[in-house]
């Protein structure tokens, strides 16, 4: 069952919006490297903000502020309808999933952005391997949940 009373289980294939968003994410990564010399890896940026404050956390805090502002601005400009959102699972799977994502990205030093985009763009072997592994395990998890256990 869905956590929200929205039967929005099927989502439309939107290649143009996907490509547009991808290009924006790429521009973000290039700007952050060219300007500040930093990798646009969200788990690293967010994770560093959880520790003791250090001087170079200022740019990280501003990046996260921009991230939130970018989402608001995009939906205000009509680029996204937040009523279309649906969260799979239930409160328990959400908490367990969040814990796993936090643990895994901290241990593996990266997530979809840091390894999947910035790392692969540098042709880093570690990032290519990491991305292949987390993709395969995500696909396998969804297969198990939807087609073996039978959750929506």
């Amino acid at each position, binding site marked *: 069952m869905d956590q929200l009373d929205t039967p929005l289980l099927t989502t439309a294939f939107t*290649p143009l919006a996907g490509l547009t968003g991808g290009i924006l994410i*790429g521009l973000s990564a290039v700007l952050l490297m060219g300007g500040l010399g930093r990798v646009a890896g969200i788990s690293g940026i967010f994770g560093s903000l*959880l520790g003791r404050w250090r001087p170079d956390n200022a740019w990280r805090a501003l990046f996260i502020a921009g991230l939130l502002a970018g989402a608001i601005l995009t939906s205000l400009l009509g680029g996204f309808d937040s009523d279309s959102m649906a*969260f799979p699972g239930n409160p328990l799977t959400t908490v367990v999933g969040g*814990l796993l994502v*936090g643990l895994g990205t901290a241990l593996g030093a990266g997530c*979809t952005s*840091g390894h999947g985009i910035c790392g692969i*763009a540098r042709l880093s072997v570690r990032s290519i391997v990491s991305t292949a592994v987390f993709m395969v395990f*995500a696909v396998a998890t969804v297969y198990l949940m939807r087609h073996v256990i039978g959750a929506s």
Partner: protein
Amino acid sequence: MDKLTALLAGLLFGAGVTVSGMVNPMKVQNFMDILGRWDPTLLFVMGGALAVTYAGYRLVLRAPRPRFAAAFVIPSLQGIDERLIGGAVVFGLGWGLTGLCPGPAIASLVFGYWPSVLFVLAMAAGMMLARSLFLETGGTSSGD
């Protein structure tokens, strides 16, 4: 200028994950459901992002240093170890279970759905847990 650059980079990233629909966890989970309600959109997001980043990195990394900082900070770790693989496995399980990864999850907070909040709090707890259990003190070593 460095502050403005960080803010603008965040803004572009937030706009990117939102306009692409990646802030909708059902859409991301449907990408992983290849034998079911498959929605291949994420392929186009990754493709676009990779093409721009690959070309852009080659351009900006030619400079002796970044425009507003002393040096490029590039992850220096080499080699495949248990930590990298184990981390990716655990992350993949959580990503599949929820359809949420760190960037879109944080961006999705602004839409006011409680699962976003629950997920981000649990993710923060998971990161701090990993740090206290497995990682040396002194912050992230390889910076993603």
